[in-house]
């Protein structure tokens, strides 16, 4: 647990919860990023404007972070372009088919004790742990 950062994790998590609560209190919407982004790129979406605004706010956050000492670190990505594309397709298709991602199911859904979201969260966390285990440690775990 060398890289465990409980304090920054607790503060960041609280802000994520606050954002989800504020979005419901002001707009009556669930803060599910896959749903919000899906609505931005989808056809015939009636309430596209607030979705675009949410995505803009999301991208502005790290840019303003640079003003107070956070650095824009290029994310560590898989070396293989094929893996990047396959992973992107799986995340896009899977979150739409399953009706949510880490935010929509994992935070918003679990926060309102939705059995669907609890099941989805256990599945995607479990599958991701298995995939990482196989990639990093081989089939034997």
């Amino acid at each position, binding site marked *: 647990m060398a890289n465990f950062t409980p304090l920054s994790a607790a503060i*960041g*998590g609280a802000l994520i919860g606050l954002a989800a609560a*504020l979005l*419901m209190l*002001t707009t009556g919407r669930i803060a599910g990023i896959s749903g919000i982004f899906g609505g931005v790129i989808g056809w015939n979406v009636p309430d596209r404007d607030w979705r675009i605004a949410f995505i803009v706010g999301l991208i502005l956050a790290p840019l303003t972070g640079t003003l107070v000492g956070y650095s824009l670190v290029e994310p560590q*990505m898989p070396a293989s372009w094929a893996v990047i594309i396959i992973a992107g397709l799986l995340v896009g298709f899977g979150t*739409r088919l399953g009706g949510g991602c880490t935010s929509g199911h994992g935070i918003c859904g679990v926060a309102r004790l939705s059995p*669907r979201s609890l099941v989805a969260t256990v599945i995607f966390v479990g599958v991701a742990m298995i995939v990482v285990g196989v990639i990093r440690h081989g089939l034997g775990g």
Partner: protein
Amino acid sequence: MLVLAGLVCGFVFGWGLLISGMMQPAKVLAFLDVFGAWDPSLLVVMATALAIGSAGYALARPRTPMFAARNLWPDKTTIDAPLVIGATLFGAGWGLSGLCPGPAIENLATLSPRLIVFVIAMAFGMALHDAWQRWRVAAAPLAASADG
């Protein structure tokens, strides 16, 4: 006002991911790597997000939202095949990359070419699903709604 609320909430959400370190795929993968040098930080992020989120939802439930007619709570309750298969596919992609949609989109700020390709593939995967659903609905009318 709806747009301003969206902007502010996206901004606060983004700051939460930034401060928690969850913008970094390496940090997320360290949480998912339970067989290696496990980093439980993401668990703490979930815990405080759920504490504040559920308190906020309890506050919101009996109220009418400030800038909309009503709260749009997801109406689906059945645990069905699309939920299970979708969560499985998403989990596989998340494990391969360490990226879920929020941090992926937020990382567009870095202009990393590999990240941009990931987000394009993700958008294509979403569009592929939606096109397939429209085709299915056209073939056999069936209401579909998402959780979030």
